């Protein structure tokens, strides 16, 4: 017994090492990247008569139905669809592993903020030379086109799927009863916050775990966190515009006029459903979540434009939004581009995506969809989609994401978590995130100026 104990311990220690180690190396094989990106311009359709099979992954609920419609009408280009979990719930990691292994397939869904990181991994094909993409892309708003082109003229690294322009969901009944109207500026928002506090509520929730939400607010104020010029990046997360937004929320946090619980989860739904939070600064995709998770407040909500920094301003930011990319490993970029342009551009497909997946399409024709011109009783009969379409037109096209956003967002959410618990303030979190992001980029051999 005694002699065997160290052996057993050794086995246990080795087991630990294996667990830790397997967690670290999901990838395998060729680490030189999944092949060079297909150059724009080299995109010919498969010879007539050949049958093309494509693969496509996304986490939009019910996307299979859209794919079924395509497969029915296109016997020569058959798409095999796989529904996966949300990007940050594991799919992004799977993509990264697949790129390492060279097994990405043809089409995949990626949120805008993660596009640069996959481009950096040489995962994306530039389908700017594929006729269907070239023809289709003109029908998307400028800001989404700059997201998928990274500012390169003529480049198309994905077809925009859906967008997340911010607007203000607010409890119209509570605001009316308090003699308030929806705040048009952030100054009014802050003034209202004090009134709401007097009534025992919070005007909003500052979501420490949703850094993309904060980013959208900085985006609205004209922040430019990442710029890339001739391969050299500039990181500017603590610029005056961003710090203005940070200071604004820091004051509300310090005065305990906003809730500071994790966002878009049970704790927040409860606060919204119980009337503790009076507004939700959200995106189109938030509507369905709100309706499902705060059912007892049905009919009491309305949507107003996002408050502005200057009276009469028309600036916006986007929280979320995604694109369908063609992977660099695809042998049929033309057909893949053709499918993507159809799936996120054709009215029949957009209607299905909206009906089954609740998607607010990026495509300019979104408000022509019958489903998106209907009054919603949850929002007191308001046609909220027209408001979101307007908000979408106001999203600033010059905001770009960095190549290591996962890490940057982690740093931000960890810092915000401490700040709302009274350890440090938002401004110092941003300064720290800036320094840390530069370190991370350098560690990945990215040139930072």
């Amino acid at each position, binding site marked *: 017994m005694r002699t065997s104990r160290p052996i057993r*311990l050794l086995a246990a220690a080795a087991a*630990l090492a294996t667990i*830790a180690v*397997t*967690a*670290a190396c999901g990838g395998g094989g060729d680490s030189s990247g999944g092949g060079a990106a297909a150059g724009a311009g080299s995109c010919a359709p498969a010879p007539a008569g050949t049958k093309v099979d494509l693969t496509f992954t996304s986490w939009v609920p019910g996307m299979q139905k859209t794919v079924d419609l395509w497969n029915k009408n296109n016997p020569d280009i058959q798409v095999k669809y796989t529904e996966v979990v949300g990007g940050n719930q594991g799919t992004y990691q799977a993509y990264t592993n697949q790129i390492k292994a060279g097994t990405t397939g043809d089409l995949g869904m990626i949120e805008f903020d993660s596009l640069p990181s996959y481009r950096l991994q040489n995962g994306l094909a530039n389908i700017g030379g594929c006729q269907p993409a070239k023809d289709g892309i003109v029908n998307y708003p400028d800001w989404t086109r700059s997201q998928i082109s990274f500012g390169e003229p003529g480049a198309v690294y994905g077809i925009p799927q859906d967008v997340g322009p911010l607007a203000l969901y607010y409890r119209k009944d509570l605001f009316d009863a308090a003699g308030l109207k929806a705040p048009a500026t952030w100054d009014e928002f802050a003034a209202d916050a004090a009134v709401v506090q007097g009534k025992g509520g919070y005007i909003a929730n500052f979501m420490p775990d949703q850094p993309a939400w904060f980013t959208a607010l900085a985006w609205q104020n004209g922040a430019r966190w990442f710029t890339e010029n001739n391969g050299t990046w500039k990181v500017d997360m603590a610029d005056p515009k961003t710090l203005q937004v940070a200071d604004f929320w820091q004051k509300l946090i310090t005065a305990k006029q906003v809730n500071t619980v994790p966002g878009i989860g049970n704790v927040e739904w409860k606060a919204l459903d119980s009337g503790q939070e009076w507004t939700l600064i959200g995106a189109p995709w938030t509507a369905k979540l709100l309706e499902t998770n705060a059912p007892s407040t049905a009919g009491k909500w309305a949507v107003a434009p996002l408050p502005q920094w200057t009276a009469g301003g028309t600036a916006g930011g986007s929280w979320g939004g995604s694109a369908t990319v063609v992977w660099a490993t695809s042998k049929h970029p033309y057909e893949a581009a053709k499918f993507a342009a159809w799936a996120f551009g054709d009215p029949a497909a957009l209607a299905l995506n909206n009906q089954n997946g609740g998607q607010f399409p990026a495509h300019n024709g979104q408000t022509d969809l019958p489903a998106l011109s209907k009054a919603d009783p949850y929002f007191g009969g308001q046609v909220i989609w027209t408001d979101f379409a307007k908000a979408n037109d106001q999203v600033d096209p010059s905001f770009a994401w960095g190549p290591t956003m996962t890490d940057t967002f982690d740093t931000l959410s960890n810092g915000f*978590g401490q700040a709302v618990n009274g350890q440090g303030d938002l401004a110092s979190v941003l300064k720290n995130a800036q320094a840390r992001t530069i370190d991370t980029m350098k560690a990945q051999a990215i040139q930072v100026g």
Partner: protein
Amino acid sequence: MAQPTLTNAPPVAPAGSPPAPPRRRTRNWGAIAGFLAPFVVLFAAFYLVPIGYSIVESLRTVTRSGTFGPVREVWGGFTQYATVFSSAQFWASILRVLRFFVISVPLQLGLALVFALLLDSPVLKGKRFFRLAFFVPYAVPGVIAAIMWSFLYAPSLSPFSLLAQNVDLIGPGLVIFSIANIVNWVFTGYNMLIIYSALQAIAPELTEAARMDGAGQWRIAWSIKIPMVFPALILTGVFSIIGTLQLFNEPLVMRLVSSAVSTDYTPNMLVYATVNGGNYNLAAAFSVVLALVTCVLSFTFLKITQRRAEG
């Protein structure tokens, strides 16, 4: 807390049965190889290769020509290890789980021992029921347990709202205790069972002799049973050290309700976040160092406790 599964000690090559003539020995080799092959193949594929791959990855670093040029992994020497050793995040997470260990494990093993002794004593009625009842939490998947407890802790969701609203169970001060409570809830019964089976193995003559000498239940527990199950306590202690350093599920789930749990709260969470960020080489280096730290701590614990057992 992912408690490692109890793997049997690697089977040792069957000691040659009575010495056989050389002719037959050659045939034996084939049989030995045949029996060993499944183990060796799996051991190599899921044990040695991943460890080796991880060590290799940890010694490499990426370069690229231009920002969006092709990525290449090249020999990086100890670049990643330099980052690990200067990473305040990593060492903060190690210190945090060590603090967690102090908070969680003595109480957990203490309770496990008490429960095991109670089950073993003739005083308790309804032993089968209690044995199952104490063990049932271990049958609840760790993530489910963490979700359940997080709902009990969150002030706006908790049915015990008076407590949850007045004591910030998920704030930066207490959240570590709240997580420890989840872990203890799950693993106390598991450790109890290990100690209990060690108690069952004690020869009845020993306790009987003690009783005839006039020892009461307390005395028997203290002077006979506890010393006899000391090896089992050491075993559970080592598992607890390993499990604590691997703490992952519970704090990850707590992030859904608490803003005081960061993405680098434990070493494993940091490794996970680093992999998510695409930095495989650094994550591999973190893993290797974490494995070494775990080995060192486990062996130290073993050495200290063994010396005590012998002395």
